[in-house]
């Protein structure tokens, strides 16, 4: 990935209030040149407001935004070195594909018509839409519209490209194809990109780094695998993928391992390394379903196991998710891959044992 550690976009302590209510609270982020950065969160988490502040459609109530070292907080949208691909694409319905792509270039006096034509056909080539230059947007399919919208937002070679729910208007199958295609184009151009999405799969597929937002605040920033494997809060752990979270009390603290007990479990939970909390602290312990192994016989371990009854099975083809009900009533998810077609599978109401290694569990302090 073509990125250096030079910051292209700096968001410093930015807040946005809408009639007294904070939609974005003191957000600070630094986004590197050439990086694809995703703002991920549910609806109303402030991600779209933050993106609109980058585009200039909203002004920050406090804080500042720097692009390439220049404070752009007070610059109107039409003078910012930033272009956006809108969720609905916002293609101009009365213009052809070529006119749409040329629109941004025509706003600058420095181009002559020939240059604009050349640039437009180059951009349409980049998104493989040369043959549709004279079509109107309503004569295009969803995927084609998205390509045109992307070409239009890249036409002025922005310093930062903004994508608002880039796959929001596409169906599932087209979505996964376009995700990779859009990333290929963005990386070929080398533009720094900030995208907003509520779809964790989309963020993980497309972005180099993800920032998880919740109620106007940034919960965690990291690469997709950091966010998934090392969530720092219950919210992040639950938002990204499926997870089992146990309420636990810290009972044993050693430099290279620690033990916790949970009222849901008979066996203690053991985690590698020490925990940054005093004995007796109440914490959460998160274990991803695919890190849990299932067996019919009791595993030969003292820690990190539980037993229960299979209550539900979600057969998903490649793998199945088993919902195991514990004596305490809590349900635990465990994943099993279906790699043997003739395997004697675990079925409903079967008593099973679940266990995991001491590297699997993540301690959540908040």
């Amino acid at each position, binding site marked *: 990935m073509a990125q250096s550690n030079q910051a292209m976009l700096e968001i410093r302590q930015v807040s946005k209030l809408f009639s007294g209510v904070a939609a974005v609270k003191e957000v600070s982020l630094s986004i590197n040149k050439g990086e694809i950065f995703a703002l991920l969160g549910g609806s109303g988490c402030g991600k779209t407001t933050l993106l609109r502040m980058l585009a*200039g459609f909203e002004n920050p109530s406090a804080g500042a935004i720097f692009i390439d070292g220049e404070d752009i907080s007070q610059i109107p949208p*039409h003078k910012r070195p930033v*272009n956006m691909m*809108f969720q609905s694409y916002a293609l*101009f*319905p009365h213009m052809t594909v070529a006119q749409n792509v040329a*629109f941004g270039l025509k*706003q600058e006096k420095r181009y002559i018509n020939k240059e604009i034509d050349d640039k437009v056909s180059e951009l349409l080539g980049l998104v493989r839409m040369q043959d549709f230059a004279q079509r109107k947007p309503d004569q295009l399919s969803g995927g084609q519209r998205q390509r045109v919208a992307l070409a*239009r937002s890249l036409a002025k070679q922005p310093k930062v490209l903004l994508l608002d729910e880039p796959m929001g208007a596409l169906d599932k199958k087209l979505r996964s194809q376009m995700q990779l295609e859009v990333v290929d184009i963005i990386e070929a151009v080398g533009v720094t990109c900030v995208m907003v999405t509520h779809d964790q799969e989309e963020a993980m597929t497309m972005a180099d780094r993800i920032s998880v937002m919740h109620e106007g605040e940034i919960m965690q920033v990291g690469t997709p695998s950091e966010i998934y494997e090392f969530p720092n809060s219950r919210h992040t752990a639950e938002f990204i993928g499926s997870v089992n979270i146990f309420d636990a009390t810290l009972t044993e603290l050693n430099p290279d391992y620690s033990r916790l007990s949970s009222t849901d479990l008979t066996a203690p939970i053991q985690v590698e390394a020490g925990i940054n909390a005093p004995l007796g602290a109440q914490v959460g312990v998160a274990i991803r379903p695919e890190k849990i192994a299932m067996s019919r016989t009791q595993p030969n371990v003292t820690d990190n196991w539980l037993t229960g009854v299979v209550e539900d099975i979600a057969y998903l083809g490649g793998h199945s998710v088993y919902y195991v009900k514990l004596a305490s009533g809590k349900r635990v998810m465990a994943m099993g891959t279906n790699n043997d077609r003739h395997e004697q599978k675990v079925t409903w109401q079967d008593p099973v044992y679940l266990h995991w290694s001491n590297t699997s569990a993540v301690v959540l302090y908040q």
Partner: protein
Amino acid sequence: MSWGQRSVISVPYLWLTLFFLVPFVIVFKISFSEMAYAIPPYTELLSWADQQLTVNLNIGNYFYLFTDDLYVRAYLSSIRIAAIATVICLIVAYPIAYTIARARPATRNALLMLVILPSWTSFLIRIYAWVGILKNNGLINNLLMWLGIIDQPIAMLNTEFAVYIGIVYAYLPFMVLPLYTNLMKLDKSLLEAAADLGAAPWKVFMTITLPLSKAGMIAGSMLVFIPAVGEFVIPDMLGGAETLMIGKVLWQEFFNNRDWPVASAVAIVMLLLLLLPITLFHRYQARELES
């Protein structure tokens, strides 16, 4: 189509047949008769005598319209006045509609109400009120003279200027409402996209808002232009003797000259003249609906 659907659709059709098509056919018929001193004051098209059915089609009324240049001048002047008034209406109504469409929902309803409110008073009374405002010792002249800006009243009443004031005033809501509806439908993200791509606010307006409101402008213009061409009350009350409009000519033919056949021919020709813009409008609308 079910019986219920048929009966629902038949009501407006029946209405239009009774009150539009039948009178139109009668007028069309009269336009081919001759004037007579009788009741009604025209000859019958069909006569029956000595076992002979005679059809008397008099197309002289139509030729007559082109021998006296009064009629041609009246048509041209009506179209010119209606066209200029429509353009003024468009220029005045656009900012009004734009502001209403951009206003907050609560304000929007109040502003819309203000546009419609004047039509709750009788049309005739409102036009008559303009006589009081525009006449030589009327509101405007008295005010200007009292302020010492002028020492002779400006002649406004009984001029074409007064007719423009009247038409623009009376037909403004018919321009504002379709424009407003059109501008409300405009997707705000298109405006943001244009700004995002570097277009300054006035450029956004010229390249996005204005072209996309074309349908509203055409609809509003038709709603103003078509009735304005045949307008009688406004030129009669505000335009005085020197303003020549076809509505007034029609009135004079019917009521002063009692020449129903010529008056009918005048009405038919006016309809034919208006048919052109109406057809163009419908064709445009059909195309808009398709896309």
